[in-house]
């Protein structure tokens, strides 16, 4: 299967637009889904987990200025990694699946949610997110595609399963057989407690970092330094 077959030919542009919307916009948008999350047994937990994740993502939108020599600006910011595959294996909970989906989306990634388990709930979640404004090309529900085919999608950047600890070894093995970029595996192996999702480092696995260095003297001189030199 090709990425185009799944997402459409304009997928790169769809990802780019979603990614450029910024964390604040996406978090606000995703927040709107909270009221209408499809009911599941762990609905209360979802209502606790998702706001925490969105709150964390919100802070990730900050452009961080970095210190350095005068006459140059240096900034670090975060950006989505690319296509994320979310799925669950037997025993996966809706709350953990939702956690992975919201994490991936909030960070600017397009998501393929596979209905290996909890298919009906996953489908309802995707419909809801489409309704509240998540572009269709950004979030795709697949019910019948075999997992092997999904794990082989050429443009995949990250796989975020909800699975057992021993299963992630197998998924890692499968992903390692691929050519091209090293696909990241960010598994939640605690379907009930979501202990990985709750950790502060978790969300950072869904992003890539970008630095932007500008020689500011090339467009406008070093006014700040000149001022320091004459008014200190």
């Amino acid at each position: 299967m090709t990425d185009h077959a799944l997402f459409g030919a304009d997928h790169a542009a769809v990802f780019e637009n979603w990614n450029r919307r910024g964390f604040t916009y996406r978090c606000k948008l995703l927040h709107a889904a909270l009221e209408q999350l499809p009911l599941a047994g762990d609905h209360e937990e979802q209502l606790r987990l998702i706001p925490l994740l969105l709150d964390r993502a919100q802070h990730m939108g900050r452009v961080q200025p970095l210190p350095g020599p005068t006459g140059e600006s240096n900034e670090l910011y975060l950006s989505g990694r690319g296509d994320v595959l979310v799925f669950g294996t037997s025993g996966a909970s809706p709350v953990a699946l939702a956690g992975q989906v919201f994490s991936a989306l909030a960070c600017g990634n397009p998501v393929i949610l596979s209905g290996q388990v909890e298919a009906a709930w996953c489908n309802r979640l995707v419909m809801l997110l489409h309704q509240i404004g998540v572009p269709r090309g950004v979030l795709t529900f697949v019910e019948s595609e075999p997992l092997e085919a999904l794990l082989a999608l050429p443009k995949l950047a990250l796989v975020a399963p909800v699975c057992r600890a021993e299963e992630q070894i197998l998924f890692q093995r499968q992903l390692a057989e691929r050519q091209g970029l090293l696909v990241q595996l960010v598994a939640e192996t605690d379907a009930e407690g979501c202990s990985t999702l709750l950790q502060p480092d978790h969300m950072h696995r869904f992003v890539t970092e970008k630095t932007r260095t500008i020689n500011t003297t090339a467009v406008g001189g070093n006014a700040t330094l000149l001022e320091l030199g004459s008014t200190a």
Partner: protein
Amino acid sequence: MFKAIDVLDPGFIRQPLSQIWQLISPLYAADEDQVLRELMALAEPSSDELATTEACATNLIEQVRADDGAIHMIDALLLEYSLDTREGILLMCLAEALMRIPDSETADALIRDKLSIADWKRHLSQSDSLLVNASTWGLLLTGKVVSLDEREDGTPSGVINRLVNRLSEPVIRKVMQQAMKIMGHQFVLGRDMPEASKRGREYRERGYTYSFDMLGEAALTEADANKYYTDYTRAIDHVGSMPQVGSSPKPSVSIKLSALHPRYEVLQEARVMSELAERVLLLIRRARPLNVALTIDAEEADRLELSLRLFEKLYRSEENRGWDGLGLVVQAYSKRALPVLAWLAALAQEVGDRIPVRLVKGAYWDSEIKLCQQRGLAGYPVFTRKEGTDVSYLACARFLLSEQLRGLIWPQFASHNAHTVASIMTLAEHADFEFQRLHGMGDALYDQVLKQAGVAVRIYAPVGNHKDLLPYLVRRLLENGANSSFVHRLVDQRCPITDLVQHPWQLLHSRNSLHNPNIPLPTEIYGAERKASSGPNILIESEWGPFAEQVNAYLNQCWQADPIIAGKTVAGTALHSDVRSPADRDNLVGQVTYASEGQVIEAIDAAERFLPTWQQTAVTERADALRRLADLLEAHLEEFVALCHQEAGKTIQDSIDEVREAVDFCRYYPARAEELFSEHLDLHRLDGGLAKWQRQGRGIFVCISPWNFPLAIFLGQVGAALVAGNCVIAKPAEQTSLIAARAIELMLEAGIPGGAIQFLPGDGATVGAALTADPRIAGVAFTGSTETAQRINRALSLRDGADAREPATLIAETGGQNAMIVDSTALPEQVVKDAVLSGFASAGQRCSALRVLCLQSDIAERIIELLKGAMAELRIGDPALPSTDIGPVIDESAQSGLLAHIERMKEYAKLLAQTPLPGKAKRGTFVPPTAVEIDRIDQIGREQFGPIIHVLRYEARHLDQLIDQINAAGYGLTLGIHSRNERTAAHIEARARIGNTYINRNQIGAVVGVQPFGGQGLSGTGPKAGGPHYLPRFTRLIPTNAQ
């Protein structure tokens, strides 16, 4: 310390010249307070001088303020569009770039970029100058029209507005280009000498004279240097034929050495002293019979000593003997200015010919500060307060005007500051000197000087094509707006005259510190958190001499590397490997003993045993050990530089930078670790409660490092893993095991326990494979090729056993197909400098190196010509020689792969240029720097890790397709952007899926903590090395107890 007051003793300049020379260089980065204390003793005004100067300055200012026509030309423009306003900056930026843009599309975009975001209206009718008001109306109208294009949020506005915009673009462009021409007319006296002398005649009749200059960019190529040389000869011939006008002294010509030779650099001294000297002697031969004095302009501080050596050679030449016409410029903001003047006076006394000396305050102040900070130098060569420079100027002036210097030096005082002018007039007890001012500035002030003092005034006047000169002149203004500050206050009636006539000595004296506390020393720019790494300035005699001596002492040393397990060197396998220098394969550098498979297991066992202890060691203890290592590395700088030359083929500056980066890692990660491990981790649970967690190292980390940064990346990986609480097994690159072994020895010396760090030199098949197959390994930090990273990933994933319950962490930093995008607003000379450095420095063996130079087709020809010329000037050879620009590639395998690629490219692409290799290159593994032109990025294939730049042309309207192509290649490490259009640069940066983007500069040399380094896609997994998110990946969170 040099005693400044001693220069007034007539005996001082009778000392041997060499003794005075010795005083100059050590002041390069001397303690600023100490230097200024010395100068203050010399500059201190007597009460009479103080009173006279104040009265004179007050009178000058009153006269200027009373003059209705005092402010015009550049003064007027700067007054209205001050460089501390947004409009002023935007106007100058537009002037800097617009005239060189050949295509209307890009020109229109630049106009939109600069004009639509400022408040031009507030400048309307604020000025009496016709030029300024005409410009303001033009800017206001165009600014209004172009701003219709977009709403504040960046979305397009109505169709009609956009239509108006499109229809009016050609008109706006024409208006703007006309405005820039008018501006060029103000800044430049004439497009050629006849025009300049015609325009200057009126001033000459009023008693002024001129120094003409063919100002412009420094020459990058022999062709450019030849062009400048021809311009200078024409100027000399023309000035020589100019008739005497009234009492106005004969005009002169200023020459810029960096325009006359493409490599006017300290490290190319042999060429400077032969090729450049010969060229200037030709100018002297031409000028002297015509009695046209020549003044050598000042350049950056690093070239001062070279300039003086060259000046001495020229001055002592037969061609110059008996002539009083060869002079030079001395910058008072330099800590070395006064001893330089003393040396010149002593030289004149020895030889007997008078030297004209133009004393200026200095024009490169901000770039001097920036360069020193970038290079971690011991201090600044310039004063950090304006009043410090002013005091130095007056100290120099007192010396220049002293009786003993009459007949030796002809002082030429250049300033637009009324107080400085008044001070000179007060200090002078004779009239053997002149003033100088810039064309278009200070007219009213110097009209008064001419009227009152009867001292000659020379106008420094740029001559040449507006298109070439305006950008240069405007850049000088932008980079050093100091010239404009006094103009403002001089004519601003609200500014009390008493404020303008305060003596700089008094002002400086009133300060708590003589240096500027707001400008930290280069090693203090990161504040209290950590010290920046330091390095010597190899361009300064007093720093280079002792440093080179110590490096040389290590060059014949033979090093040895063996496995180190549990802190002890162990005998390796029978497999020994001789290490030979890549620059000369006959040169045996040392020997490496490879670790056996059994030793791999021993090392893992040792690490496993020590892990609990290391994880429980306080983070501050781990951090302090790493900080001690940083200090030890700095203490062993010379040894590592020698090792880097010998084993890795690195040039001198590359070697220093290598050690500096390692030092920065060893100070940055401790700071981050202490921050990270002090976080309180009370995390929410899904049931609403809180759980306490703590952070600890993941376990045993394997660090597999590359040969291209054998110390910096090696210690970056190892240091991060260690300080985060992991035990580390380090496998260095086979090619650079000696450097790594020496680093491990220093780690142990720094107090890192032997159990925490194991060292296993060896090849990937034996050592690497055994390590990555072991289930006890919790993580791998790897830098190298994408293919090897995939192999490691596969090996890690195939591990079995109870320990492998979760996948090992793999932090991989891999290759790049790095592009630089250049649009037609870019400054071609800067582009080529940055492209050559980015593509060829370190023989292109940097992950960040430029591989694809993407040129907007409208400017491609000019840039390709410059690139060819600049490549012809590169010097390839022994990396231990200061004159070497490019050393060898690492080994035969790399060499043959790169040469094969070049051959393949010759079939599919157009060979643009190739720098020839010297004969001696046969002894080593050298690859000639090569530029080829391709049609598509995918023609390159895999990353070529060497000195090869692929040039690709693109049409301005296809910029987005180009970005798509770059993204489609799948790599995402570095990107360079050269554009004066900030919106264009921002657009490219946002769209490109790249880890590190550099705008209007080179794209290599990421600094720890400043430009965290790492890519995306095929270029690596992240997180970025040297960034705030790196250490957490070496740790895990462990629950402690539930609340």
